Structure formats: structure tokens, C-alpha cells
């Protein structure tokens, strides 16, 4: 960890890490200020009220600093856990499903905090089941399936390598079956016969779109609209995990 052996030099490694667990494991009777200050001390840092104040304000907990933790809502408790993890100024922050059970508004606030942290240079390792969150937030993605790390890849690179694109052609008249002349293309007819769906690889030298459109034109099929869709990280994830 940052050049430190995690067993022999556990103090140096652990002091770099902030951990936010998935479960809301908080004290009950202590005040927000006391529990966050306790965490800072536990990680070997001298008192720094200015830093604790900054963290609590960033997490919208400042006006609750004297409240007992048991009086806080679930979302606030979650933020207290984040404040505890940030109290000792870690360089790496583990967030274990931080938005599980958190309402939409609070989730947005939380992501803003995470973005600010990332921008300040903190490495954030986020585990989540919400793939769109990872797509939205992450720079690098790791996929874990049944405890096995399948890959770790730069997000843009991953989507470029494993992502596919779809061209959907909305037909003027429904078709019963795909015309034989179009059988050589990677083309499907959707269930009600109103759309032709063409999947292609954006990384290929040729996408084949020009030839396909020419072939469709020759068959006399007319379409009224077209759209393209890039496969999401979730599609990639399902593809990866599903193949296993």
C-alpha cells in the first residue's frame, strides 16, 4: 500500500486508509463531534478541530455535531460514517455500497462529496451493485464475480473494448420476417416486426453501416426513423458475468 507492506508496516498502510462499511455500524449515545474526533485519534492523528469542522460542514452535519448519533436519520448516520473515515485525512477511501438505502436527494449530495474528494486527490475505491453509479463516477472499473476479480480496466477503455453499438431502424411497414437478401448482415427483426436492429463494433475498421443501408434500400424497405445506442456499463457487466 503506497510502498508499505500491509503486514509488517501495518501502521503506515492503515493510516492511509479510510473505511466506510456497508452496514450502519455507529455508536448510539455519543455525539457526532465526539465519535468523529475519536476516529481521528484512533488513527494516530493529533486533535484538529478545524479539520473535523471542515469535514462535518462538507457532509452537511455541522448543525448536528452535538446530537447523539441515535437521534439521526439513516442517511445522516451514513454521512457520519463517511465523516469518521475522513477524519484522519486518508489518501485512500473505501466506500462499501454507500448509497444502499439512501434516498435520491441524499445520494446526489453524497456523490458530490465523493467527486470533491476525488478532485482533491483522494483515491476512492467504491463497491456497488448499481452499475450506473460506477459508470457515472469511476475512472477505473473492476468486475468481481463470485469473489474473483475478473478484470480491472480504465472505464473508457473498457467501454471501448467491450461495448457494442446498436443501430435501430424504425420501419414504415411492419415485416413478418427478415428478407433473405439481408441474411448476411448481423441484423435482427424486433418482436413486433417494426424495427430492424443492427449490432456493430465501433472498434472495427468498418462498421458496415453504409453497405447495410444500401442493401436495405435495394430490397425496397423504407424506414421512417433511425437511432443508435451505445451499450452501457451494465450491459457489459451482464455480458461479462453472464458468460462466466
Amino acid at each position, binding site marked *: 500500500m503506497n510502498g508499505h507492506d500491509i503486514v509488517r508496516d501495518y*501502521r*503506515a498502510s492503515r493510516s492511509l486508509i479510510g*473505511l466506510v462499511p456497508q452496514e450502519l455500524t455507529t*455508536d*448510539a449515545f455519543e455525539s457526532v463531534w*465526539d465519535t468523529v474526533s475519536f476516529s481521528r485519534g*484512533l488513527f494516530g492523528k493529533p486533535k484538529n478541530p478545524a479539520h473535523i469542522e471542515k469535514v462535518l460542514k462538507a457532509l452537511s452535519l455541522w448543525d448536528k455535531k452535538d446530537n447523539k448519533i441515535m437521534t439521526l436519520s439513516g442517511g445522516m448516520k451514513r454521512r457520519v460514517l463517511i465523516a469518521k473515515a475522513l477524519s484522519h485525512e486518508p489518501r485512500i477511501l473505501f466506500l462499501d455500497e454507500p448509497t444502499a438505502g439512501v434516498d435520491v436527494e441524499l445520494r446526489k449530495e453524497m456523490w458530490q462529496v465523493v467527486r470533491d474528494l476525488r478532485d482533491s486527490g483522494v483515491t476512492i475505491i467504491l463497491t456497488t451493485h448499481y452499475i450506473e453509479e460506477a459508470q457515472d463516477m469511476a475512472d477505473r472499473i473492476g468486475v468481481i464475480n463470485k469473489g474473483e476479480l475478473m478484470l480491472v480496466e480504465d472505464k473508457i477503455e473498457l467501454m471501448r473494448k467491450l461495448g457494442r453499438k446498436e443501430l435501430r431502424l424504425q420501419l414504415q411497414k411492419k415485416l413478418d420476417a427478415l428478407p433473405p437478401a439481408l441474411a448476411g448482415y448481423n441484423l435482427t427483426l424486433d418482436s413486433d416486426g417494426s424495427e430492424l436492429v443492427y449490432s456493430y463494433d465501433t472498434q472495427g475498421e468498418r462498421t458496415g453501416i453504409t453497405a447495410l443501408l444500401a442493401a436495405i434500400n435495394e430490397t425496397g424497405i423504407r424506414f421512417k426513423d433511425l437511432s443508435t445506442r451505445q451499450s452501457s456499463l451494465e450491459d457489459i457487466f451482464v455480458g461479462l458475468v453472464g458468460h462466466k
Partner: protein
Amino acid sequence: MNWHAVWAIYNFEMARTRRTLFQSVVSPVISTSLYFVVFGAAIGSRITEIEGVSYGSFIVPGLIMLTLLTQSVMNASFGIYFPRFVGTIYELLSAPVSYFEIVLGYVGAAATKSIIIGLIILATAGFFVPLEIAHPFWMVAFLLLTALTFSLLGFIIGIWADGFEKLQIVPLLIITPLTFLGGSFYSVSVLPPFWQKVTLLNPVVYLVSGFRWSFFEVADVHVEVSLAMTAVFLALCLAIIWWIFRTGYRLKN
């Protein structure tokens, strides 16, 4: 050495004591006062001196030991059990602290609290009976060693327990009976010879005897034996705690 962590744990535990001042301090004082009323005044007035010491004064070291043992065990066991129960132990296990520092913080706080209560009881006893301490240094030494040893025992119980019931079992079913039967309220010499020998298997006898010696120079066993036995219990508790942290017993699951 992560002194900030030791201080954080110590302070956190002491803050709990301050929050629960009434049940932490006032209730032991009230129950001790009741012992004085019942044993010292009501029953003690009918008992003549024991080995030259008035009965009321004779029971003071035993009463302090009774509270010291139960409070040390209960404070330390609750201190480490509660984070395990609510799950906040994750923070302790992920922090850059050594096992020694964790023990120092929790056991130090538990021992401090029980020593404070012991001293309050001593002061309370001064209102009821005349008190003289023949060997103040050894009185403090026995107080410190006993509080430390039984706080370590409490720490072990707090890690062993998997429910609040188990947390209560040891103080209620083992420590209190052993203290009552360990010569807190009587001299072992008044027992029949057979029971005198049986009593010597009770570790509390050595603690109470040594502590009483520091007050009145009256003891059931030699003070050196008391000291040696206290050191043995201390070493035993330290060895068990070393094993717990080495194996992660009940800590990492």
C-alpha cells in the same frame, strides 16, 4: 506507539462513565453504604473485634475489593463487548493500533473507573467507621494490581461473550460468590480446618487478605503469597489476551 489512539480509546470509555455518572458511581456508593448499615451497624454491633480490629473497620477492605472486582470486570467487559455487539469493532480492527494499545486504552479506562469507585467507597467508609491505613503504598499497589488484573479478566469476558447474558454471568455467578466466600466479611481463621484449606483455592482470598494487611497488618495468608498470587493472575490474564489477539478469537468474525 500510537499514544493518540490509546488516549482516544481511554477518553471515549471515560466519557461513557461521565455520561452514566449515576449508575457508575452513585449506585456502588449507595450499595456500600447499605452494607455498612447492615453488617457494620446492625450485625457488627453484636460481633466483637476480629484480630484486634473492630468488625465495621474489618469489612472495609473486603467491601472495597468486592466493588473493585465486580466493577473492573463489568466495565472492561462492557467496554469491548459493546463495539462487537453494534459492529463498530471494524474501526478498531482497521486502525493503525497494536493489540497492546487497544488493551491499554480499554483496560486502563476500566481500571481507572473502578479505582475511582474504590477510593470513593473508602472515603464513604470513613464516615461510618474509624480507618487507619498501616501501609498506604501497599494499599495503593494492591488496589492498582487488582483493578488491572480484573479489568483484563473483564476484557477477556467481553471478547468471549456472545450475548449480554454471558456478560452478566461471570460477575454474578463467579466473581460475587468468590468474593463473599473469600473472607470479605470474615477472617478465614474462623472457618473449620477443612474449609480453611478449601478456601485457599479461592483466588479472591489472596487479594482480600493482602489488601486487608495493608490496612490493619492482619492477614489470612502471608502478604508475599498474596502479592505472588496477584502477579500470577495478572500474568495468566495477559497470556490469554495475547492468545486472543494472536488468533483473532471472536474478534474477526
